[in-house]
């Protein structure tokens, strides 16, 4: 291990250098731009063997990724917000064609109004496109997740594209301590890509991306559904193996003082660091507070999460985006649905926070705990940190 100080973007760029993908196609967008800028310098300095395609839009970035991955290449890209939105059309094509493209996604609010700061509206809007989605709390997790992403996505049982996310500016530009694994060890850890098919296989010509009428479209969606199920096993296996090799533990989620907690928050991404501080303070004053930090949002580990949360008195689900469905953010609806069959289900309340980079602080999270301790006193869906 090499200990360095890096921002989230730098950590992701370092991981990309170590992965040394065959092809990278990307387009600049704040706050993910830096990942590509740093990587472009690696290309210019000959530190990687990558064919780098500086495309003219994110749409073309994802399109080129699909082309390169169909040719059997190991492919990476990075983006944010509007850039991810411009890719939306191609994301489900990548998963349908079973192309394990790896994306560094820096969470940023979707326009409008235009805003360059963190929330999860970009990534959440991409949740139903057959991509695996992994959230990172900090720089270390961003780095570790990206390395594991290669193994998860390219596993024969999975063969799905994957996005590893960090929170815009908060993680992407925040300098933190990073334990890096040595280059040759990473190389060995990720191994060589063995594609299922390649367009460049002239001897065995294949037609890729054919037209399905009503008689086959449904059938072609089933393998993607099955692969997502398999991804659950693979994510756990890869996490265990990573822990064995490098000592850091990864599963579907991280529990923080959860087992004996009576009240718990469910959080994704950087806010979980703030939540930990709030929980420590509450514990000190005798409140049995805890947290479940979701790492893997797609596939959604519903059963596992239900087991963890059942029996608690009350749960607060924190959403950094809204669904505009009038009944809760995307994480909330998943959690509520996951707990539907539990015998001893807690009361569940939703707190939408932090849109467009609005800060969330320890006091606010303590207030969230206070709210759910008075079950029935607050509405089911709450918006915190907004001037009302």
């Amino acid at each position, binding site marked *: 291990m090499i200990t360095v100080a890096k921002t989230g973007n730098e950590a992701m760029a370092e991981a990309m250098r170590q992965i040394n993908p065959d092809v990278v196609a990307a387009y600049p967008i704040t706050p993910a731009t830096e990942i590509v800028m740093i990587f472009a310098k690696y290309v210019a300095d000959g530190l990687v063997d990558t064919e780098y395609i500086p495309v003219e839009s994110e749409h073309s970035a994802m*399109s080129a990724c699909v082309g390169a991955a169909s040719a059997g290449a190991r492919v990476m890209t990075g983006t944010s917000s509007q850039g991810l939105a411009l890719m939306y059309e191609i994301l489900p094509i990548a998963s349908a064609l079973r192309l394990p493209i790896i994306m560094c996604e820096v969470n940023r609010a979707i326009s409008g109004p235009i805003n360059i700061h963190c929330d999860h509206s970009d990534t959440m809007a991409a949740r139903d496109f057959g991509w695996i989605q992994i959230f990172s709390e900090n720089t270390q997790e961003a780095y570790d997740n990206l390395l594991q992403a290669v193994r998860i996505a390219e596993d024969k049982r999975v063969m799905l594209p994957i996005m590893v996310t960090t929170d815009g500016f908060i993680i992407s530009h925040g300098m933190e301590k990073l334990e890096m694994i040595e280059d040759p060890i990473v190389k060995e850890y990720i191994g060589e890509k063995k594609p299922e098919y390649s*367009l460049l296989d002239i001897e065995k010509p294949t037609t890729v991306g*054919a037209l399905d009428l009503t008689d086959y479209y449904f059938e*072609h969606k089933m393998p993607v559904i099955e692969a997502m199920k398999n991804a659950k096993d693979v994510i756990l296996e890869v996490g265990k193996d990573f822990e064995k090799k490098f000592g850091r533990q990864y599963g579907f989620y991280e529990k923080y003082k959860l087992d004996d907690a009576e009240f718990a928050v469910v959080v994704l991404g950087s806010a979980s660091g703030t939540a930990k501080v709030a929980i420590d303070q509450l514990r000190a004053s005798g409140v049995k507070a805890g947290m479940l930090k979701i790492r893997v949002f797609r596939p959604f580990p519903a059963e596992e999460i239900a087991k963890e949360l059942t029996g608690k008195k009350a749960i607060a689900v924190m959403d950094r985006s809204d669904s505009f469905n009038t009944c809760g953010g995307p994480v909330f609806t998943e959690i509520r649905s996951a707990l539907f069959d539990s015998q001893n289900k807690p009361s569940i309340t939703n707190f939408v926070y932090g849109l467009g980079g609005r800060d969330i602080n320890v006091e606010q999270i303590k207030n969230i705990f206070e709210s759910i301790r008075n079950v029935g006193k607050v509405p089911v869906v709450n918006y915190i940190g907004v001037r009302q």
Partner: protein
Amino acid sequence: MATLKELSVRKDPLTGGHRACAGCGFPQIVRMVCLASKDPIVVVSATGCLEVTTTIFPYSAWTVPFLHNAFENAAATLSGVEAAYKAFLKKGKIAKKINFIAFGGDGGTYDIGLQSLSGAMERGHNLLYVCYNNQAYMNTSIQRSGATPKGANTTTEPAGKVKQGKVQRQKDLTEIMVAHNIPYAAQATVGYWADLVRKAEKAFSIDGPRFINVLQPCRLGWVYKPEETMSISRLAADTCFWPLYEVENGKYKVTLKPKEKKPIIEFLKSQDRFRHLFNPKNETILVEIQKEIDYNWEKLLAKEAK
């Protein structure tokens, strides 16, 4: 140029059994272009008639590697395939030469795919982009495109009591490609097959981004008898409605100079999409169209003479 006999022993990129209309023009364009390659090829197609009719699952008419991604991104998609090929060449994982070809209709090329095409050409990928240009969105029932010529009847700009089909002129995509300073850009049409095959051969002999804009009569949208696809195509060139030329490293060469330039009405009257123009009250439009064709033809000859 390879003779037809020589081409006929090469691998036809398509089998029978695809669902293009009887008498369609694009399968021949695909065959002529692909057969012109001595080396193995990989094909990417934009969404459109070609992709839809040749790949209805579980029936593929392609005998060569083929990828369809979406409507507007054939050029970007192929640039990714080509980049992967370069990466594998560098790593010694592949050795043989492969020619990379993208096909897109005029909708997927002139309109929604223009940005993707422009980007790929500017980046200098080693690929050939071929537009099979039938001058409207035929796959979705003949809607107007940026390639639809003035006066043509389409379903989104139909001829009516006060409007006579498309009001605007078509954009000149071939010149837009020339303006990208690519090593080779050309215009061809399917009926002059020898000219098209020769241009494709030339394109394959050059490195870098290359573009061929091939006019393709469409019996459905242009409305004529199915056996006339090739002859109407030649009429387009003989009237200078669709000049055949190439631009190699900035040097223009007109590859067909009709001995006697036929009047445009001969081309227009061969198809029902222009029928309304022959109403006496529309004579001025016919005159205008002829004028524009004459002007563009002279302009092209002047570029060649430079």
